[in-house]
């Protein structure tokens, strides 16, 4: 081959591999569920085999138990979560007017604790916060994600998207390099997946526990050898917000099971 031909072939190869760069078209979106083995899928689908349901049961007990100086339970204001919390998780994160920024479900629960129950905030990834979040989010199971309707969220979604595509860390990778561009490939033995946040908080077999989307994001950020943001950091909430708006229309699976 002449040098010119080599260059032409190389250019064609680069063009061919970057054809699927950029955002995933809505018709090609797939939940992480579809990348799992039939055994793990069966575990998620059976409420008596899905370990995430243990947190949901705990969350239901917490929902009805009084907490804080005000001596109020969640149920004292919100009544039956099956009615009052239906569809709520499908809208989160939402814009909080008082704070002037988006808040996720965990932050909303802690804001409710502080403002209405006069209780101390629950720590991120604690059994109590994971359980309450799972219980609230489970009320939206099978409902389509609606996050991002509020026009006030637009600048924060844009920030989240910028972070999603931003290369960072010692490996110099952005989220999009794997989850938009290479989701049909594998990283070692594991499927890369499209990174749709449809089932959080979810039970991850690797964690042997239920965990939040922020835990997952921090794990990924550590994986590209960047410095992870602290739990509750605005950057993580903006990333959550972008991911939920990116998964718009896909059904909530909480509590999902993932390998």
């Amino acid at each position, binding site marked *: 081959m002449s040098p010119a031909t080599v260059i032409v072939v190389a250019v064609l190869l680069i063009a061919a591999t970057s054809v699927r760069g950029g955002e995933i078209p809505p018709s090609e979106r797939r939940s992480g569920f579809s990348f799992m083995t039939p055994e793990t899928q069966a575990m998620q689908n*059976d*409420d*008596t*085999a899905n*370990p995430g*349901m*243990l947190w949901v*049961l*705990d969350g239901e*007990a917490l929902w009805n138990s009084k907490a804080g100086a005000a001596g109020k339970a969640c149920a004292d204001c919100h009544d039956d979560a099956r009615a009052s919390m239906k569809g709520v998780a499908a809208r989160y994160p939402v814009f909080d007017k008082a704070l002037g920024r988006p808040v996720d479900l965990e932050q909303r629960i802690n804001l409710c604790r502080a403002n209405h129950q006069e209780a101390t905030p629950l720590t991120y990834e604690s059994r109590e916060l994971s359980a309450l979040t799972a219980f609230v989010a489970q009320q939206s199971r099978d409902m389509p994600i609606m996050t991002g309707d509020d026009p006030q969220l637009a600048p924060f979604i844009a920030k989240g998207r910028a972070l999603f595509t931003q290369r960072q860390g010692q490996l110099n990778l952005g989220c999009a390099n794997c989850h938009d561009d290479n989701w049909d490939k594998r990283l070692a033995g594991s499927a890369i997946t499209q990174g749709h946040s449809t089932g959080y908080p979810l039970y991850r*077999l690797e964690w*042997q*526990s239920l965990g939040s989307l922020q835990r997952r994001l921090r794990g990924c950020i550590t994986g590209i050898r960047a410095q992870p943001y602290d739990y509750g950091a605005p950057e993580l909430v903006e990333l959550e917000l972008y991911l939920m708006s990116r998964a718009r229309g896909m059904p909530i699976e909480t509590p999902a099971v993932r390998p």
Partner: protein
Amino acid sequence: MAPALINVPRKAKRGEIIEIKTLMSHIMETGYRHTSTGEVVPRDIITSFTCRYNGAEIFRADLFPAIAANPFITFFTVATESGKFDFEWIGDKGFSETASAAITVE
């Protein structure tokens, strides 16, 4: 009380083989891990699981540190008569939980 999830068919035909599924909430700390300061995290696992069918023991399992958190134990038995399954989990640090489920055999 740690929550448990039990799946026993509500009804079965006499002589039918039925599947029983149990899921117990437990951290199953192995006792082999250390904290960042080098102290051993003490072992905290479920050591024994039993199932009684109308008082008679039909299944028993001893559990060890290699078993994952939130142990999911399933087994089969023959539906002989209507009655009750009693489940018991015993473990370290005085862990003791029970659960039961009823079955109607026709």
